[in-house]
């Protein structure tokens, strides 16, 4: 009897980035705190998030496509507002944090 062969782990076919999601949106994400999506610019990453969690784009962006004023997105620690906003490229291996503005004081 021949032992079954274990398939080799498949390498990701697309360079990917890790996106951390805020606690306030966990109802939308089914309690998922992070997700790996394909790299691209921030706008395409939001589109991917919306595909994974329908409706999430409207949490992050107004109908005009602009990032909501109290939503901040950091790519490897840099706020996209001080770069090219949603056109900011997100390289493979980057870590994205989505948070809301500080509130309370």
């Amino acid at each position: 009897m021949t032992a079954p062969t274990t398939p080799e782990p498949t390498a990701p076919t697309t360079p990917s980035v890790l996106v951390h999601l805020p606690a306030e949106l966990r109802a939308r994400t089914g309690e998922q705190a992070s997700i790996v999506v394909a790299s691209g610019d921030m706008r395409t990453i939001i589109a991917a998030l919306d595909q994974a969690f329908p409706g999430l784009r409207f949490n992050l962006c107004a109908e005009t496509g602009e990032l909501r004023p109290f939503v901040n997105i950091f790519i490897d620690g840099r706020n996209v507002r001080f770069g090219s906003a949603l056109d900011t490229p997100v390289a493979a291996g980057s870590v994205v944090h989505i948070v809301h503005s500080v509130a309370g004081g």
Partner: protein
Amino acid sequence: MASSDSTALRSGETVVLLGTKRGLFTVRSRDRVTWECAPTTLDGTRVYNATLDQRGGRRRIYAADNGDFFGTFLRYSDDFGQTWQEPERGIQFPEESGLSLENIWLIEPGRPTEPNVVYAGVAPASLWVSEDAGVTWSLNEGLAQHPTRSEWQPGAGGLCLHTIVPDHSDPQRMWVGISAVGCVRTDDGGKTWQFKNKNTRAGFQPDIYPEYGQCLHRMLQHPTQSNTLYQQNHCGVYRSDDGGDNWTDIQRDLPSEFGFPIAIDPGHPDTVFTIVENEGRNNFGEQFTVYRTRDGGEQWESLTEGLPGGGGVRLGVLRHGMATDSHDPCGVYVGTNTGQLFASADGGESWHVAADFLPSIYSVTVAVIE
């Protein structure tokens, strides 16, 4: 405070929904004397308005969930606020409009003869319609494309459509209230809209009687005389007996022209309640007072029994902060910006605190369980 629970709802029970600065609460009573207040799972966001709709065999709560950070959503619940659903196609402006949703101000069930129709008013000022009990929503293009729209100016709360009055006698006629535009009426089912502000003041403008630009705060229709309307305005209290074509000032001896809410006793519709405020947007004088007319606005009387007074009393009530129930004598409910719900079970003669220590109350609606 136990969480809200629909399983124990009984026919005849009175249910008050409180939209607050931080979440939606239910306040229930079987005798309108003792009350049970409970939070819903809609917690932590600004709920400008909520309503319990019992038409069409449903018992559905619609709520305006205005988030601080992650957007504004209309939500609905069929289990008395324990779980919530989003529409399949919600209130979102077309991208090409250049507009973005700020806040949902009002959710108004349609006529009894159209149990799947629900309306919503939002900022920026526009009217939204659902014909499938909230599952999908559409923008009323007639109002959105109004030729004067580019000249509409916001009030302090934004350019908001906060009042919707579907005519109970004519399915083609409806009034809406917009701050600071005024009263706007359609006679053709929403295709075209006309201003109906004659004789209502805009005392904050050089021309105090403009065609539009008034700051209407709240408007209601008489439940049996379809041409009779009442409105509380930034500048006076008014009545119309011709569907809004002309308005008559009925402020009379009320101590201030400024107030937000207005409510009608549905069983005795010449009885109307209002609250007027001082320049600081608090009770006029040192006694928190609800005012009542029993003759359609000819005379007003002060109702104070059980309401607080004294040098430290500074209460404000917003435009959706007062409601009446369908009992006789009718119950009257007033929610304050300091988190109290005052209730009267005898048409305003006497009052008691039905709920306290809540976040600032934005809206009060009431239903008697069928």
